């Protein structure tokens, strides 16, 4: 049987998620034997045309050109996998969805007319059908390898729906919110990172995005009880996964001054 054909595509992003594949130092060469890496521009000059069995897509959609390119990638993909917060939720650059795009262009570039961007930063799922998601900023190497292994042997990938709190307990880390009163998004954030932030004595900032049915309202109220202003609570939700629906709604709810803008 022919090896499955793998492609890696990038849209607006930092390269960190596709780099995670090259950071699988122990597994990279074995993986390259198990699949045919047909298109992975960051790693290879060889760019084979589709169709591809599995396409990993990093980045968010921020320009008309990217919309068209993503649609073409979708046509070539049997299984399209959004990797990382930019692809699954728009990423940190989606913060501009709460601001005026023209004002942003003028703030950064002296000749804004050269710069063409969409009014809103979009996750892949706003433009095409996405078959699977790997969360995180960046994604977890362990989850990536598990996903690829699952595809190779035809089992269901293990996708956690529980919160970072569960991983934090399993890791034996001290709860930063209970012990030190530090605001932590762990209770509403999807597991996968291994609870790195609490283990490093700081609150989770939600880079794996919302878990299934997160109780953002109760957590935000708890942050307020710990002494945070409603503005600060809004900013906590408006981070790397600001545009993921439950976090966007929570951010809007706690934002004081710009709540009318919606």
């Amino acid at each position, binding site marked *: 049987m022919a090896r499955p054909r793998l492609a890696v595509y990038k849209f607006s992003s930092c390269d960190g998620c596709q780099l995670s594949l*090259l*950071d699988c130092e122990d597994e990279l*060469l074995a993986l390259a034997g198990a699949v045919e890496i047909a298109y992975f521009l960051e790693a*290879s*000059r060889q760019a084979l045309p589709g169709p591809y069995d599995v396409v990993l897509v990093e980045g968010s959609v921020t320009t008309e050109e990217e919309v068209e390119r993503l649609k073409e990638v979708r046509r070539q993909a049997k299984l399209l996998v959004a990797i990382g917060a930019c692809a699954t939720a728009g990423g940190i650059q989606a913060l501009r969805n709460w601001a005026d795009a023209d004002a942003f262009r003028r703030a950064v570039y*002296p000749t804004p007319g050269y710069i063409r961007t969409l009014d809103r930063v979009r996750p892949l799922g706003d433009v095409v059908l996405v078959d699977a998601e790997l969360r995180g900023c960046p994604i977890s190497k362990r989850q990536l390898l598990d996903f690829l292994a699952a595809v190779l042997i035809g089992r269901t990938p293990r996708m956690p729906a529980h919160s970072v709190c569960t991983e934090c307990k399993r890791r034996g880390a001290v709860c930063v919110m209970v012990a030190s009163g530090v605001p932590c998004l762990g209770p509403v954030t999807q597991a996968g*990172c291994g609870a790195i932030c609490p283990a*490093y*004595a700081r609150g989770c*900032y939600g880079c794996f995005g919302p878990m299934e049915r997160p109780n953002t309202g109760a957590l935000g109220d708890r942050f307020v009880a710990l002494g945070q202003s409603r503005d600060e609570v809004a900013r906590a939700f408006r981070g790397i996964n600001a545009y993921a629906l439950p976090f966007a709604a929570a951010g809007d709810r706690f934002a004081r001054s710009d709540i009318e803008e919606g």
Partner: protein
Amino acid sequence: MVQRRIEVGALARVEGEGGLRVVVEGGRVAEVFLDIFEPPRFFEAFLRGRTAQDAVDLTARICGICPVAYQMSAAHALEKAFGVSPPPGVRALRRLFYCGEWIESHVLHMFLLHAPDFLGYDSAIAMAQVPALRPLVERALRMKQVGNRLVALIGGREVHPVSACVGGFFRAPGRAELAALAPDLAWGLEAAVEALRWAGSLSYPAFETDYEFVALRHPGEYPMNEGRIVSSGGLDAAVEDYDAHFTEEQVAHSNALHSRFRRDGQSYLVGPLARLNLNADRLSPAARAAAGELGLRLPLRNPFMSLLARGLETVHAFEEALALVEAYEPPDPPRVPVVPRAGAGAHATEAPRGMLYHRYEVDEAGRIATVRIVPPTAQNLRRIEDDLRRFVPMVLEAPHDEATLRCEQLVRSYDPCISCATHFLRLQVERRPGT
């Protein structure tokens, strides 16, 4: 008139998205464009109103390959703005953190991005299919892994680490945790010396340029987190005065701004070649010995030989990391508290690809008011185009595919990070003389 075009729609084995266009008319290079179509992400705009710690965590997201560099430039600049100094021991730990990033980034570039050009393969993965080359690739992956483990141990993870903060670190690793890495670092040092011997055996295109090199220089150390800005043309300035000496302009074919000297509008070079040429006397003993063994005569003016500079810096980073691990005492506390106040702070550190400048203004609540970031690749873009203009005539006689590959190889020599180079702030339009 006969027109010939060399075009690369999307450059491979670089970070981010860029293309290359060269137009030759009647044997003369008419136009050279490094097209940067990586879309902008407007970091300077959305950071306004955020906390200082957000600047440390979020500017890391500009680049997945050198997040530590962004965190270090941001933390130092903001510590100046708030007037705080991190506790003793943090300085050494930050240097160790940076060694890890130099190792993973340099080895990635040397072997996975650049080496395939020299050996005639499309990728390091293709090289690994050749039995004679597989050990080279395996050794490189292991070296890169040691660098990544160092970053992950100090920062929590390899890409976008979480421990760095304004004032120090959220958590400092224990002595035993770092000591466990010592055998791998010792192995890495030997491996890096071997890797450099291999790099010395490659054949480099004969192409030299009269660069003005720009890098940090520190009184006693090879520069990472601290130093003054110096150049081979005699510049010697405090990092706070960066804007007095350099400026940026926007060009139509690029979503990245181009840097140049204010003095005369000339381009300049930052990165491993510049650092090495300006700081060779600060290299570690093993790196100096390795340079001697190679018979390197400085300054190196051949951009393709930046591979050797990266190799030397990798030897240095392994040797220094080993020494830092052996002398390590965990800083206690790992950070000082930051009391918000209005102010401004600017700092530059040496990212793997070269000098990375950050400047912040903060309001009385400690929130970000303005941000300015100048990444190394934006500083090199103009220089890369200048070099291509001179290099293209040398390869015009070659078959088209070969000429294209050689131009790509030259561009890859600078290890351009296009994700870094886009979305940066400049407030004034400047036009080049004569246009």
